[in-house]
């Protein structure tokens, strides 16, 4: 089976990086809005959100159910779907942690940007397996304009 693909418009990619830089050394988070197709999906818009983990924002993020509902409503108003979430790993690799996996939902795309000393570095995206045991890395494709999905 080929890897699932996540297409991201360049403007959104830059906005995610800028959000990670803005909140550094804390984790940023937000919703990915777009369209889902067979094995391929596209990020068309974002809903940047506040990290609700006031107690440990450098290594944790949390999106409350109210914020999830807000993101769903925003997606619906824009005739898009809520297809996933992004967050930053300040001074840590852009790979999902055990904590990420324990708390992940299936189906959603989880985009992670590593922010090293305040600069955005690697960016990766992941989907949880059905059995919750591991992730599939998504093939990330960044392009200047809307690409469409197959």
């Amino acid at each position, binding site marked *: 089976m080929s890897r699932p693909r996540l297409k991201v418009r360049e403007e959104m990619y830059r906005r995610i990086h800028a959000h990670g830089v803005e909140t550094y050394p804390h984790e940023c988070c937000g919703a990915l809005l777009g369209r889902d197709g067979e094995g391929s999906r596209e990020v068309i818009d974002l809903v940047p959100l506040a990290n609700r983990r006031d107690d440990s924002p450098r*290594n944790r993020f949390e999106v409350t*159910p109210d914020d*999830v509902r807000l993101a769903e409503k925003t997606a619906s108003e824009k005739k898009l779907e809520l297809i996933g979430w992004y967050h930053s790993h300040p001074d*840590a690799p852009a790979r999902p942690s*055990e*904590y990420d996996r324990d708390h992940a*939902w299936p*189906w959603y795309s989880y985009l992670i940007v590593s922010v090293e000393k305040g600069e955005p570095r690697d960016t990766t995206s992941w989907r949880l397996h059905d059995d919750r045991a591991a992730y599939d890395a998504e093939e990330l494709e960044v392009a200047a304009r809307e690409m469409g999905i197959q």
Partner: protein
Amino acid sequence: MAVKVMIPTPLRAYAGKQESVEVQAATVGEALSALTTKHSDLRKHLFSDDGRLRSFVNVYVNDEDIRYLQKDQTAVKAGDTISIVPSIAGGVNRARI
């Protein structure tokens, strides 16, 4: 009593791709049990190995969070809607920051 359980997008693949499932139940606990009996693949995403609702799974009865009601003992009546709403969490593994 027939109640409707709304399934969030990430779990619809495990519930026959349905947005909602109707079950017979008198409490929220019974409704979730009936739901996971009907669609057993949902169980591991809703409950941890010890049978507790996962911390990032939120359950509402007609927009009221069951944590502020009687949790899984919250009574439901015909026509009520139970919603499963995700919260999202994650972060870096670090013992000390």
